[in-house]
C-alpha cells in the first residue's frame, strides 16, 4: 500500500521490512521464457524454452556454457546474464590455471551469491535482473543450483523458473523421487516433458538442452539431437494440452538440415532487451560446443 514511497531505491526498506526493488528484480525473471533443471546421480540437465515468435533475427542463447563441468540456463535480462556468465567463466578459468582442477561448485555459487548481494545493498547499483539454473558435475556428484536476483542461491533437486513455469514445477515435484534413478535418456525426457507445460499449445517446442555429468563434459545438444529426444519422449501423462500427434506435426517445419541457419529470436526475455544483431548467423542455435573442446 505504501509501495510508491519505498520502491525508488534499493537501499530503502519498506515499513513491513521488504526491499521492493529486489522484489521487482525477481519479477524480471518471470518475463523470461521457462527454464527447467533436474539431476540424477550422474547427470544434470538444463532445458531452456525458446519463443519462436518470428523467423527473422537470431535467438538469444538460453544456455551459456561456463566450463567443462558447469553450464547455466538463464531467464530474464540476457545482458545481465552475460555479465554473470563472464564472471563465472573467469572464476573457473583462473581456478583451473592456479590449481589445475575444476572449481568446486558449492564455492563457485557461494562467491556468485556474495557478488550479487553487493548490488542489492548499494545506492549506485541495481540487482541483476536474471535468474540462473546452474547445472554442474564435480566430485561431490551432480548439482542443480538456482540463483535469483535477490542473491539467494538454492541447491535444488529440480527447479523451474521463468514465464509459466508453475506447470513445469508441478511436474517436477510430482516425479522428483524418481530422478536420482533415471537413466540419462529418461532424465532428458523428463526435462522435455516438464518444459512442455510452459509452452503454448499452438507453437512448436523449440528447446535448448544442456547436459553435464560423469564422463560427460558440459554440452549443449545439437538441434538434431534435441529433436530426436523430443520425438521419442512420451508426452506427459495428463495430456491436457498436448496429444500424441501434436509433436510430429508441429515439429515438421523444424526438421533442420545441417545448412539451416535461421533460429527464432527470443524477444520474450525482457522489455529492455533487444535481440543482438551481428554479422554472423549461427549454423544451429549458436551454442554448440563439441565434446573435445572446452568452453
Amino acid at each position: 500500500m505504501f509501495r510508491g514511497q519505498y520502491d525508488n531505491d534499493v537501499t530503502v526498506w519498506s515499513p513491513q521490512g521488504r526491499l521492493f526493488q529486489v522484489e521487482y528484480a525477481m519479477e524480471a525473471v518471470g518475463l523470461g521464457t521457462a527454464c527447467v533443471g533436474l539431476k540424477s546421480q550422474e547427470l544434470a540437465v538444463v532445458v531452456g524454452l525458446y519463443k519462436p515468435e518470428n523467423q527473422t533475427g537470431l535467438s538469444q542463447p538460453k544456455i551459456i556454457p561456463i566450463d567443462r563441468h558447469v553450464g547455466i540456463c538463464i531467464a530474464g535480462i540476457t545482458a545481465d546474464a552475460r555479465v554473470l556468465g563472464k564472471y563465472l567463466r573467469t572464476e573457473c578459468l583462473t581456478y583451473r590455471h592456479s590449481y589445475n582442477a575444476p572449481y568446486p561448485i558449492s564455492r563457485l555459487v557461494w562467491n556468485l551469491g556474495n557478488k550479487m548481494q553487493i548490488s542489492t545493498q548499494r545506492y549506485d547499483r541495481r540487482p541483476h535482473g536474471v535468474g540462473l539454473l546452474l547445472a554442474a558435475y564435480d566430485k561431490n556428484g551432480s548439482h542443480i543450483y538456482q540463483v535469483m536476483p535477490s542473491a539467494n542461491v538454492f541447491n535444488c533437486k529440480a527447479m523451474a523458473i521463468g514465464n509459466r513455469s508453475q506447470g513445469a514445477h508441478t511436474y517436477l515435484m510430482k516425479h522428483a523421487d524418481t530422478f536420482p534413478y533415471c537413466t540419462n535418456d529418461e532424465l532428458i525426457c523428463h526435462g522435455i516433458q516438464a518444459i512442455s507445460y510452459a509452452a503454448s499449445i499452438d507453437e512448436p517446442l523449440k528447446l535448448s538442452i544442456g547436459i553435464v555429468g560423469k564422463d560427460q563434459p558440459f554440452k549443449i545438444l545439437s538441434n538434431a539431437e534435441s529433436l530426436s529426444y523430443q520425438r521419442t519422449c512420451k508426452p506427459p501423462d495428463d495430456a491436457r494440452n498436448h496429444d500424441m500427434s501434436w509433436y510430429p506435426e508441429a515439429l515438421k517445419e523444424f526438421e533442420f538440415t545441417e545448412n539451416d541457419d535461421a533460429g527464432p529470436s527470443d524477444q520474450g526475455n525482457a522489455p529492455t532487451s533487444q535481440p543482438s544483431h551481428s554479422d554472423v548467423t549461427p549454423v544451429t542455435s549458436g551454442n554448440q560446443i563439441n565434446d573435445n573442446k572446452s568452453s
Partner: protein
Amino acid sequence: MMNNTFAQPMWLNGPSPGQFYNFMGGNNAPTQLPRELTTAGPYGTKHSTAAITTGSSVLGIRFDGGVLVAADTLVSYGSLARYQNINRVFQINGKILLGGGGDFADIQSIKRSIDQKMIEDQCCNDGVVMKPAELSSWLTRVLYNRRSRMNPLYIDVVVAGVDEVGKPFLGNVDLRGRAYDDFVVATGFARHLSLPLVRERKPKDREFTFEEAASLIREAMKVLYYRDTRSLPQYTVGICTANDCSIKGPFKVEENWTFAEGVTGY
C-alpha cells in the same frame, strides 16, 4: 580544551582530489605494483638470491599405499649447524605433506600462506579439501611469478600426499617454478646422492611396498649424513596414506664410525 590529538577522520575511503575514484567498490581494486617496487627504503629495495638460513636435503618416496617424506632436523647458518632440532616436514592438511628445503625463512613464509588457505577451506566447511596436486600447481604459479619479478622465494619443496580416492601424489617444486612429479623426488644433496640410489632399486612393473620405501629412506638418510657436510644424524619422516597423515620421529641414523680407525695418512 581543543585537544584534537585523537580526532577521527570524518569519512574514510572517499574520493581523493586529483585521483581516480573507484566507484565499483571492493571488487574492482586497481592493480597495484608488487611490494618490492613500492617499498620505501634508504637504498631502495634490494632483491636478493642469497639464502641465509638453509635446510638441506628432503627426500620423498611414493609407495603403493601413500608417500613418505624425510628430512633431517638441521637448519644451517652458512657452515654453522645453528638450529639442530627443527622439523622440516610439515603436515598441511589431512591429505598433504610439505617437505621444505632451501632458505628456511622463505619456507616459513610460504607455509604461512598455505596455512591460511587451509583455514579458509575449514571456514567454508563444505567438505572440499585441497589435494596435493592442486597445492603443487598453486605453488608452481606463485614461485614462477616471483621468479619472473626477479625476487624469488629461495625454496625447493617436496609436495606429497594422497587425493580423495587414496591415490598417492609426490611432486617437487623449485624456486624457479619448475614442477614435476615422480615416484621419488629430492632436494639439495639428496638430489645427487639419493635419487640414483632409489631409482636403481625401483621394481620395473610395480610400485614400492611400504617396507621397501621405509628401508630406502633409512639407507638414504644414512648416506646423506655420511656425505653431506650440512646434515645431522637426526631426521623426521612424514607419512601420508588414505588413513593417516602425520609426522613421525625424530629418528637417528645408524652411524658407524669404526672404519675411521683404518683411515691413515691424509
